[in-house]
């Protein structure tokens, strides 16, 4: 058999846990091979072993039939293995070119970096695979999608034949995902092989040839994608039946909770990103905001939650003005917020999970009296939420850092929902989570709605928007350009709206200025 990569009976242990337990993966030349598994199943670990970042305790790796010992990434590079990591490995203040050549820089006779030559080569590579990357741009200035293409270029520049993608689509917009799929296909056409880690079964069905499923560190087996269904893959992965469509009753919207009127917000660089946005949300409905990243969603959320000042317009909650109020004021007025970056905003990672549970309420009774904390109350509360929201943690004293992403997210949702806010803002609440966790979170959002709360859902996952929302507001260029009913629309139509192709509506909002 002409396997390019064979990982045979790999075992990798971490203190107290067997991350990979006797897993075998065999990848043929020119195929896209999927790795599927729940959060923490051991996919990233396995690939890090292949890339030389970890050493396996047992097992054998063969590249093109030859047994190899990959003790560091240099060796992997030499063997033609490249990896696009789950968390990007890019140096932000550097340019695209600098990032790509880092570690294998072309030199002039003088011994300094031959930037010209490098830029030319990268431009050529980029053109060849249709990657559309500007070699002179700074990483901090380019979009997430382009950053990922830089990561791909990095591997190609080093002459990789086998590319590993670790959850590449988790951070991408639908358009970018489609582009990526194209890129993968063209790579395979050029004779490269790809290993793709993803939680999105649809993607596997779309581009992959084979799929190896991992559950709790053990290899469950490899299936031929052409002969399987998403349902089969899902049950292989979690070991039980999974329902994809979220069950929910029809929404019964009541009085208006949130009113946004002609809102303008500038971003860090002092450019208007929200430009005269109007939006209303009623009690008992979930409004989903669909839109491509960078159309002002982040700024909108920040303005809503008091993290950023708006330059004009108004925000009203239950008839009370919330414009440019402090985050504390906003929270106290009855807004809950599941932030899109849970590590940056959602948690103090070094605090115990218990202390994180009272992040906004520590100063209130019963958690403190006259500024003195009441730890008993705090930890009682924490224990209650941990149980209720199925947060898997050794104890409420465990630092939040030690929890997996999914469990961190559950803790945040528990905290926000428990305060019973009139308006719950959920930004990318399921990013990077496995289907089990996603199911749970969607259920919670719908429960809130059913309790008569207003929910604002911002997501780049069209599936999620279509599945959970009662009403979809399409955001483009800082404005809501369309309100659609999820039942009467398709991904296709949404995609067009998100790309700003509805001329008549744009003209309408022009008048309102």
């Amino acid at each position, binding site marked *: 058999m002409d396997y390019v990569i064979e990982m045979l009976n790999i075992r990798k242990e971490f203190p107290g846990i067997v991350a990979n337990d006797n897993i075998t993966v065999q990848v043929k030349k020119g195929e896209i091979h999927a790795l599927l598994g729940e959060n923490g199943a051991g996919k990233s670990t396995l690939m890090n072993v292949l890339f030389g970042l970890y050493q396996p305790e047992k097992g054998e790796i063969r590249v093109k039939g030859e047994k190899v010992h990959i003790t560091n990434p240099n060796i992997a590079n030499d063997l033609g293995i490249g990896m696009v990591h789950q968390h990007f490995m890019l140096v932000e203040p550097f340019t695209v070119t600098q990032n790509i050549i880092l570690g294998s820089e072309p030199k002039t006779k003088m011994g300094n970096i031959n930037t010209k030559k490098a830029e030319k080569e990268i431009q050529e590579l980029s053109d060849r695979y249709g990657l559309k990357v500007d070699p002179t741009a700074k990483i901090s200035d380019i979009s997430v999608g382009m950053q990922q293409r830089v990561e791909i270029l990095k591997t190609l520049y080093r002459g990789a034949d086998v590319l590993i993608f670790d959850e590449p689509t988790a951070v991408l917009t639908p358009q970018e995902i489609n582009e990526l799929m194209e890129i993968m296909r063209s790579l395979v056409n050029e004779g490269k092989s790809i290993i793709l880690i993803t939680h999105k079964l649809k993607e596997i069905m779309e581009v992959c040839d084979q799929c190896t499923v991992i559950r709790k560190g053990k290899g469950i087996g490899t299936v031929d994608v052409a002969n399987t269904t998403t349902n089969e893959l899902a049950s292989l992965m979690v070991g039980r039946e999974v329902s994809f469509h979220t069950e929910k009753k029809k929404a019964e919207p009541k009085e208006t909770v949130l009113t946004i009127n002609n809102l303008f917000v500038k971003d860090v660089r002092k450019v208007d990103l929200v430009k005269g946005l109007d939006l209303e949300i009623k009690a008992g409905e979930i409004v989903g905001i669909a839109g491509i990243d960078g159309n002002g969603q982040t700024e909108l959320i920040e303005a809503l939650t008091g993290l950023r000042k708006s330059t004009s317009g108004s925000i009203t909650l239950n008839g009370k003005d919330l414009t440019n109020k402090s985050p*504390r004021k906003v929270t106290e007025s009855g807004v809950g917020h599941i932030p899109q970056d849970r590590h940056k905003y959602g948690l103090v990672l070094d605090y115990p999970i218990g202390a994180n549970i009272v992040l906004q309420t520590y100063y209130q009774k019963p958690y403190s009296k006259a500024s003195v904390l009441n730890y008993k109350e705090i930890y009682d509360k924490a224990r209650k939420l941990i149980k209720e929201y199925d947060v898997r943690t050794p104890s409420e004293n465990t630092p939040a850092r030690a929890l997996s992403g999914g469990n961190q997210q559950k803790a945040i949702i528990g905290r926000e929902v428990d305060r019973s806010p009139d308006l719950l803002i959920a930004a990318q609440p399921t990013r990077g989570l496995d289907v089990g966790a996603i199911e749970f979170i969607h259920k919670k959002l719908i429960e809130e709605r059913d309790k008569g709360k207003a929910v604002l859902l911002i997501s780049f996952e069209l599936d999620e928007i279509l599945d959970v929302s009662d009403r979809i507001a399409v955001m483009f260029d800082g404005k809501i350009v369309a309100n659609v009913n999820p039942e009467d629309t398709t991904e296709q139509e949404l995609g067009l709206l998100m790309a700003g192709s509805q001329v008549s509506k744009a003209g309408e909002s022009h008048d309102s200025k």
Partner: protein
Amino acid sequence: MTANNKLFGILVPIISVILGLIVGAIIMLISGHNPIEAYASLWAGAFGDAFTLGETIRRITPLILTGLAVAFAFKSGLFNIGAEGQVIVGWLAAVWVGLAIDAPMIIHLPLAIIMGAIAGGLWGFIPGLLKAKIGVHEVIVTIMLNYIALFSTNAIIRSVLTEQSTTTDHIAPTASLASEWLQSLTYFSRMHYGILIAVFAAVIMWFLIERTTIGYELKAVGFNQHASKYAGMNVSKNIILSMVIAGGFAGLAGAMEGLGTYGTISVMSGFTNLGFDGIAVALLGANNPFGVILAAILFGVLKEGAGEMPTGAGVPTELVDIIIALIIFFVASSYLIRWILLRFKKEGDK
């Protein structure tokens, strides 16, 4: 695991101290001195009699406070290299009040102490404000403020508190922390009531940090400013507050020197080093208030005892600085000690 961590938390400093002393002994052997004699005289220098014991306690007092000053700022992610300058202005303010005001002790002494803390706090406020509002690195501002404190204080001593003299008059007895009783107990050492204030300050810090919403906020800001802002905390206010309180502790250290040990303030040609030693104390004490007390005791003992080494064993006092530096290294590199301990444990388990 957590029980293990606690055990390590105690074992690591102890082992570090032992290692530091061993390496110190090796250095002495190499340079032709007798380590046993040297350590014996060090011991005598710190605990030999009531006087040295009193002096050792006197020396520990400001070290506790500057240790707290550094540790407190550390808790909210700030590095207070400025304890040095805060000590100086605290000292100045306390002595100033001690000299200029005529009041009964019950008012005078607390006022002088508080003014010392306020002056130190003010000296912490400046870098705090600049950090919070403009994002200027606190390390560089505190370094600069150390010099400004030094030169300004010297100028004030010379042209305001005295007429071109280098030492002020003695403060009024009503503002003095010195105690005839303590002195008589310790054969005229300069031990004073400040030690009680220092220990009390450590308790205050512990309570503030561990038990109040203020501490909750300060630590949160130290760990993650974004999340703190998200949670509705005022990040700027907390940064400033942290530096002010830290400066207050250092100012108190200065007040201890001014009201307790010396009763005066003199023109200084260089830094007191209390602030820099405070960094070491805070580190060895793992930024924990009670750890700070223990670390201050250790350093106080070593430094006081060192005075006896040249006469007792012909060993230069600087050996103690070397030992202290080594101890800090070992504590900082506790990874190594943990690793070795784990090895031992594994062997033992088998």
